[in-house]
């Protein structure tokens, strides 16, 4: 009863407004969540039922075969392993380059600050091109070398600018001045003051880099030939390709093999959805742990006080 007394009574227009907002948020959430839900349903359903539109809301012809087929592929395990390695070490490498660069560039007294910023900015608009990059990597011995997935790309200019903005707006200069008076060097200020206060942006940038590393496949496609080095995304792509093209070479094979290959071709349609799940689940699990930082981090620079 006491609770009800304290509640602010909304007038009619406010209630309508709130209802509309809730309705919009619900619809938006459904629009965003439904494709994922559909992928789950489709990955466990009969491929023909999926194509006929019979799995809009619920499973039809429930089957685990697509997942069984994917799990049996030896490159799946190595793909997971490689992707994890590339993500962990690659993200660490990116962060080691990005955060110090952002911190330094947030200092207004840095000589040549504008020129250095332009140097970074240009990379956002002009790329090196595939062939020059390939030639460069080849000279560095990175072709067919898994290191290319870790050190191939160092800094994302966008991420660096976001981090720099955080250092400029969220940590007052007076803090650094006080530290300086107490005898702290720039390096000490960075490690003892800036970094501890930059947890939100570090979390956000880490997430950006980690997602990018997890989803990347093109660099591996172009620079890594041995399957043992392939990341998960490329391995999954290969699993679909090999099953899809199974029929092309089916001349003169046995009945058992023919049936087996036909079944594989049939199941590949459901495997497409299973592949989405296999690739997404680790990130879906990972995301809630950094969500609180993420919300803070993406707000950086958006509000002027």
């Amino acid at each position, binding site marked *: 009863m006491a609770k009800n007394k304290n509640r602010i009574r909304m007038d009619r227009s406010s209630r309508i407004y709130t209802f509309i907002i809730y309705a919009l948020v619900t619809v938006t959430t459904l629009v965003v969540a439904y494709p994922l839900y559909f992928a789950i349903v489709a990955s466990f359903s009969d491929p023909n039922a999926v194509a006929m539109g019979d799995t809009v809301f619920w499973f039809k012809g429930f089957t685990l075969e697509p997942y069984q087929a994917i799990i*049996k592929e030896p490159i799946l395990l190595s793909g997971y392993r490689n992707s994890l390695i590339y993500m962990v070490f690659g993200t660490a490498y990116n962060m080691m380059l990005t955060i110090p660069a952002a911190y330094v560039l947030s200092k207004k007294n840095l000589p040549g600050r504008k020129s250095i910023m332009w140097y970074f900015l240009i990379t956002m608009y002009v790329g090196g091109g595939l062939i020059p990059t390939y030639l460069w990597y080849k000279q560095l011995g990175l072709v067919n070398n898994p290191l290319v997935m870790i050190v191939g790309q160092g800094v994302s200019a966008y991420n660096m600018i976001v981090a720099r903005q955080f250092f400029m707006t969220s940590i007052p200069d007076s803090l650094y001045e006080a530290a300086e008076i107490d005898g702290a060097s720039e390096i000490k200020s960075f490690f003892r003051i800036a970094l501890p206060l930059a947890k939100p942006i570090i979390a956000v940038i880490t997430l950006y880099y980690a997602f990018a590393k997890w989803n990347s496949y093109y660099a591996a*496609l172009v620079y890594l*030939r*041995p399957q043992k080095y392939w990341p998960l995304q490329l391995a999954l792509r290969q699993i679909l390709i*090999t099953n899809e093209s199974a029929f092309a070479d089916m*001349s*003169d094979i*046995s009945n058992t093999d*023919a049936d087996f*290959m036909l079944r594989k071709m049939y199941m590949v349609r459901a495997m497409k959805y299973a592949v989405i799940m296999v690739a997404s689940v680790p990130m879906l699990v990972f995301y809630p742990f950094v969500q609180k930082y993420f919300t803070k981090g993406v707000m950086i620079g958006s509000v002027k006080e």
Partner: protein
Amino acid sequence: MKHISRFLSLMLVLLLLCGSALAEIPTWLHVDQLPLTDEPVKLKIACLVHNNSTDPLNSWTYEYIKQVMGVDIDLEYFYSASRNETIVMMMADGTLPDMIIACSLNANELTKYGTVEGKLLDLRPYINEENAPNLTAIYAEHPEYLNELVTPDGAQYSIGYINENSFGTTCFNMFYNYDWLEACGLSVPTTLDEFLEMLRAFKKYGEEQGIDGIAPFGGNSGAFNCTYLILNALGYDTSINYQWRGSCDTNICLRNGKIVMPAYDREVLPYYLNYLHTMYEEKLMEEDYYTLDIDTCKAHLAANRYGVFNIMPSIYTNIEQGRSWFGIIPMTSEYSDKAFWPNYSMQTIGAFVVSADTKYPELCVAFADHFYDPEYCQMFLNGYTGPSVNQPELFLGKTTGWYYDPINGITNDDYLAIKEKYQSYIFWRYDKLFLWGPGLFGVTRSEGPGVTHDENGNKFSAYEVEGKGETIMEKAKIRENTTIATQQQGIALYNCQSKYLIDEYTPTVCYFDEETTERIDELKTLVTEYATKELAKFVIGTRPLSELDDYFAEMDKLGAAEYVQYYADYYASMH
């Protein structure tokens, strides 16, 4: 005891000697040509490997090349997914390997890297009796293969993959549901009028049977396009720029010896569109024929909604359901009184190219030639030969090999020994034997369709099985006994279409210079996009056929005449 051991050892030695004396080297193994070189030569090879090949450097073919052929190779391999990028980068970085294998370089790529940039070697001077006896013999027997390989500057930059074995892949596939034909009391249509009547009968039959959403003329305008059947009855042979099972009415093709484009053919297009429009109006084809995706098509096929389809249905359903289906017979119409079915070129170009900078052009050509012995190629398709051959030194220590089992097809004892590790024999073959995938390099050459070999090296055809009876409906009963989808497809095509095959087909390969290629690409985009869109409108009725003159006027403006003329001139220059 000691005497017994000695006696047994002696007996074993004698048995071994007898066995060796009895073991014959297969006639097709030209041992005198091996190794290809006695010098310590290292060749750099780039090869597109099979997608299922997990470790090409441990494949049997790789070891065979090194140990038996005597060529030390530095292999750079890649998979089909990165084929385009790899080719571009190899050509750009100035360190082109000695040979590129199984990449199927197309006419534009061969013109660019060969004629224009001079990065590829003209192989013509090196393909002779001494370096390449197999290829020389093939080109002597089939000069048309050579014609397809020689570019306008008179050079031959590539060797093609030659396939004379796969009847089903060198001509269009098209099938009817024979169970429905029998149920409707019909025979296979031989004219377009009969075809329309058949579709109407199928529709009525399907509705009586309660088949939901029946569309007798199956497929869509994309990968499962069956309109080729109608175009063929109107006299068209679409094989220039022929896209596998895609749309045909905007392709350049031959009709009555002239190069035309069906979508720009003032004589026949009105009839063709009217015919399709009738089919659409009477709901004899899919309502969303022009937007339907392939997965939905496959699902509709499995739901038994179709009576006509362009791929053996058992591939997308199952062998039982597929037994309802058998081949079509080419039809005639008021525009074409000759029933024909084009038997396309069995060669794909660009299978093998050599760097212009190689120090060993003769060896490279000899290397390629090795795989153009049909028997050798069979070996590289299926691995070392059968258990009757006992020549371990030629087969890297292997004493057993592939053999043909009438029930189980081709199999191999080495596979059977580790069967559990692989999901199927074919995966073992891809992983352990192949370096490049089948159908990309070499020759599959035989005396007839579907011909293969038994364990004794005797040839036989799995497809050349004539159905019993006089009429095609009687012969088609054979479908009830087939047990493998590919065999069923082969037998259907053999019984129905082999009599109608013609050798005069529209060329599949055209070499144009870079400027012309650019202009053709530009025109093609404009003309085909407009035509595709407008033809669909005419068929579904959103644009009346009375506006066909306006349509042709727009096609004129877009440069359709110029586009067709490039191909007409090329064809004229070839003949």
